[in-house]
């Protein structure tokens, strides 16, 4: 079943059209990878899905994005609630300069979840969910910035899942990490997709092939090809796709 459907989505930075007529189905409890050369609009598309582009002045959206059948760009949409349902993990790990505990507790606190449930339980469950619990459980009061980069990124994932989103968007979550941390995050993603719908932007073809179920190939703001990952990497239908994934273009 499709969790998110983008329908003829156009996006403009001022006069510059960064996305042109993107239509895509993002399946629930699956990992969808977005690939393509630098500047082709992958991040822009991703930020359309939780309306983070709203924070950039002078931008404009046309078309529709349906989340569970509701248009998230319809007037009157609660953007704050949307972003609770659609979480985001960024390229550079960006934990707040606070304790590990406070980082994970941030979302539950601002959303008032801690009034109904035990905050410590939420934090523990989220850290376990992000495969970080065993490494930090003895010192939840340590400064988040004292963790290694890989740990910081998993902390950001824990922070994101603490508010129990339905979708997690990841924009090149491993590009600042070393290969071991990268494999750890990929392993984590495979476990997370049981509970979450995941969309990941990546520059790493092997990563897309390894973790994703679906792959979308962007080129100059257009979605050139969208297919099951296996098909995409074994028998791409477009010449452009083939030359990109075999490393001859881009």
């Amino acid at each position, binding site marked *: 079943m499709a969790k998110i459907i983008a329908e003829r989505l156009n996006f403009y930075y001022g006069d510059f059209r960064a996305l042109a007529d993107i239509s895509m189905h993002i399946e629930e409890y699956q990992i969808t990878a977005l690939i393509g050369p630098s500047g082709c609009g992958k991040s822009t598309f991703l930020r359309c899905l*939780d309306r*983070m582009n709203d*924070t950039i002045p002078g931008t404009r959206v046309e078309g529709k994005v349906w989340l569970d059948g509701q248009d998230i760009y319809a007037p009157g949409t609660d953007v*704050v*609630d*949307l*972003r*609770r349902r659609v*979480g*985001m993990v*960024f390229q*550079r790990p*960006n*934990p*707040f*300069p*606070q304790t590990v505990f406070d980082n994970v507790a*941030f*979302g539950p*606190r*601002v*959303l008032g979840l801690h009034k109904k449930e035990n905050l410590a339980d939420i934090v523990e469950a989220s850290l376990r969910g992000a495969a970080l619990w065993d490494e930090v459980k003895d010192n939840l009061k340590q*400064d988040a*910035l004292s963790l290694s980069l890989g740990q910081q990124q998993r902390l*950001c994932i824990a*922070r*994101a899942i603490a*508010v129990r989103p339905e979708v997690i968007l990841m924009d090149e979550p491993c590009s600042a990490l070393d290969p071991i941390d990268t494999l750890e995050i990929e392993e984590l993603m495979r476990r997370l997709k049981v509970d979450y719908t995941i969309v990941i932007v990546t520059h790493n073809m092997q990563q897309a092939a390894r973790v994703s179920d679906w792959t979308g190939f962007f080129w100059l703001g257009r979605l050139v090809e969208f297919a099951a990952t296996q098909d995409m990497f074994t028998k791409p239908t477009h010449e452009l796709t083939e030359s990109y994934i075999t490393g001859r273009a881009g």
Partner: protein
Amino acid sequence: MNQPQRFRWAEFTIEALIRVLGFSTIGFVLLIFLFLLREGLPTFFEVPLGNLFGTRWYPTFDLFGTLPLILGSALVTLTAIVIALPLGVATAVFVREVAPGWARELLKPMIEVLAGIPSVVLGFFGMTVIAPLVRQTLGAPTGLTAFTGALILAYMSLPTLISVAEDALDAVPKSYRDAGLAMGATQWQTIWRVVVPAARSGIVTAVMLGLGRAIGETMAVMMVTGNAARLPLTLDSLFRPVRTMTATIAAEMGEVAQGSVHYHALFAIGIILFLMTFLINLAAALTIFQKRRRGGLR
């Protein structure tokens, strides 16, 4: 051969000049400090310590208790900070985070102009406008109180506080704001729970710089605090006249005989004041240093 030679001479002259200027600045500071010590230190031999740190300042009767003055300065300064901190931080947040671009461009220079108002003008304003207001609202016998002084001082330290706090907010990386918003926090929640805490050490620095400026301020304070050298220990002290260290020096230095015990005692107050400001500035410098080391500025 000729050309490079001349070039190097110019270089040498400029360098030497800069060096002389730099060292002479340090030299002047040292000289002032030595002068302060030479004039003030004798007090500690001429006046018994019990008297010097006693509770009564009546130079005519050889009573040189500096405690009321120290506490007076502390009371006025701390109250000023308590008033200025929330105002300053709120203004900085507004200017940096909320105000639209054109308003920011308008507000920033205006805040800087505030810093340029001579303190005697503020003192005059305090005497003629604020003091009567304080007297009426409190029903007090006089409007010249510690509180009035604190109001004026708060106003004076605001420009420094705001601009330093604003710089601190500005240094908070956008990635923190994005993370907060992407979590479903509102703009306000992101500001208060992410951005302001992340700028905390910078805001502490801002407060200390404001504090350093406020404690040394003389003219405006002397004009509005009533200058009664009484020990501000009761609860209502805030709304009674008070005397600060700076006001004491300024008021009495003119009529004191050079070399007398009283004269030396005034310099001793100067030494105490100098030490206090020095410690505050040191604390500010240390927080900045700590922030750098923690990588808070990335």
